[in-house]
């Protein structure tokens, strides 16, 4: 686990300042602020529709907030595509909820895309790095030549992770990494994230409402609700808070089970 005070002295990787988001008349974020530091596994939690995925899309510049600013590596997220865009884009990887794999390409080709587009490495070396990444996310090698439609949901998720980390980014975004996976594979995924973090020194920002993952993997957690950050801190700190939504979130029957397993 990260030492809080030591982490805080670093310059933040992500700063979200008073972000507000509206879809028509529906308010998704009223006022959301949070700061993420290098080297930590930061989880954004919250119920369905609390705007977790929207916040992630705003951080990586896919969507513009109605108000407030977001800085990614000190650069305004709304302007990521301007200037030396490639330098920013190769510093982070995103694993989307549905994988976002290109269905016309095989798994290996999918994983190779960032290398092919952003570097001038020899094909031989690209193949080796790609194969290594495929192996390191725990996919069997014979799946490398398969197309995304031929893979199971869990394999697609792993393949998307392999593509997200193929450039060894500093920052990795995971959108619901364990949703829809069976408990064994989900637990394996948690271990994988921890292992990669240890090996590559990643900063990980994950969106999840998997309580096991929150207890097992996350250094700090922000709980979104009612358009605001309801609470932010380690899981143990959050468990102490009296906010009714957080309390219900963490102390429901599933929350208690997860806490008794990891939270002691």
């Amino acid at each position, binding site marked *: 686990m990260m030492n809080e005070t030591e982490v805080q002295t670093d310059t933040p990787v992500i700063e979200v300042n008073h972000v507000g988001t509206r879809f028509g008349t529906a308010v998704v974020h009223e006022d959301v602020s949070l700061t993420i530091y290098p080297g930590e596994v930061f989880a954004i939690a919250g119920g369905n529709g609390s705007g977790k995925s929207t916040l992630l899309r705003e951080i990586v510049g896919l969507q513009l907030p109605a108000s407030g600013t977001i800085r990614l590596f000190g650069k305004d997220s709304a302007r990521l595509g301007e200037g030396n865009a490639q330098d920013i884009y190769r510093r982070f990887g995103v694993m989307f909820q549905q994988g976002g794999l290109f269905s016309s390409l095989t798994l*290996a080709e999918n994983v190779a895309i960032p290398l092919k587009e952003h*570097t001038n*490495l020899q094909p031989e*070396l690209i193949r080796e790095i790609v*194969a290594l990444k495929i192996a390191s996310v725990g996919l069997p*090698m*014979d799946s490398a030549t398969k197309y995304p439609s031929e893979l199971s949901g869990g394999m697609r998720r792993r393949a998307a992770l392999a593509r997200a980390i193929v450039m*060894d980014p500093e920052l990795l975004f995971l959108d619901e990494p364990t949703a829809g996976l069976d408990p064994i594979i989900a637990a394996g995924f948690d271990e994988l994230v921890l292992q990669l973090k*240890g*090996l590559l020194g990643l900063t990980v920002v994950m969106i999840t409402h998997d309580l096991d993952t929150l207890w097992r993997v996350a250094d700090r957690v922000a709980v979104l609700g009612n358009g605001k950050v309801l609470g932010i801190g380690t899981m143990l700190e959050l468990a102490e808070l009296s906010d009714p939504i957080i309390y219900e979130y963490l102390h429901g029957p599933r929350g208690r089970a997860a806490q008794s397993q990891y939270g002691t």
Partner: protein
Amino acid sequence: MIEHSPSVEARICIIGDSMIQCEGSWTISNLAALDHVLHTFHWPVVSELVWDTMKITAMDTGGAVLLHRTLTKLRNEGRRVSVQGLRPDFGELLQMVSSNWSRIDAVKASKSRALSQFEQWVSQKVRQTVTAMAFVGECTVEVFRAITNPSLIRWRAMFHSLELDGFLALPITGLLAFLMGVVIAYQGAEQLQRFGANIFVVDLVGISFLREIGPLIVAILVAGRSGSAYAAEFGTMKVTEEFDAIRTLGLSPIQLLVLPRVCGLVIAVPLLTVYADVLGVFGGALVAFNRLDLSLTEFLSRFEEWVALRHFLIGIGKAPFFAMIIAVVGCYQGFQIRGNVDDVGLRTTISVVQSIFLVIVFDAMCSIVFSWWNI
């Protein structure tokens, strides 16, 4: 740990006889240059090499791959290679690479052979033919079920299809037919004028339009408008699991979705053909009046006298078959989509190309048969 500034280059040099010194940041941005250096490096001809990696300041997976690959190559050449001074975290990375290396080799070796590609191609074609025939068979069964039990016919869906594929196609079909009539008459007028055979423009436009061009124009338009829409629509429904829902509710997707569209088109296309015939011939008459001084009355009386009814009937008679081909091909291609995004685009394209192809083949066969029968 991972340094991303490309200014710190990755370097390698020889110190003394057998010491290789590595420096700098062995990260992806520097790898291309480093890879080139390593490939062309003259390794000292000694049996034991020591790699000093103390000065490597940053390393990522790519760097570890390159280091491991080079070390393995040197070891395979019979040298003893040892590594010293590697930072523990880089050591872990290298360990991860080497423990996965055997699996990498397996991938590189498995390339598909030409023969197996041919086998796949053949088996794929055979499978396609079988599924296409199964689909047509299933449709036929459903048609007979609907005939024996008319309450199964989905009237609402059929009228919806009639509106969407028939009524809403009127403007574009009319415009195109009119323009085709104009074009044919214009081209004909040039030639006929030279022989003073102006009046034959009526036969030219009338027969060619009623018999061939009218139905074909409509069929091609409908294939582009409706056949492709069926494929794309069904494909998307497949992706959103609507087909599975229909089946598990005990309903037949063919009866629910395919038959109304086939019936709708079978009614709409002949009607559209009549409409296209009228506008096409009108276009021809307009040009005849303009270019060949043939009044509308003259045109129509000649038309009545010389353009036999059978031409109209043959054209109209082909239209329902065209409609069936287009609807069945479009629906079939839509059914073949397997929850895959680029499949939707591919199948939509195939549905248009295939239905137009089949329509023209069918038309050609009709021409041959009719010429045997002298009609």
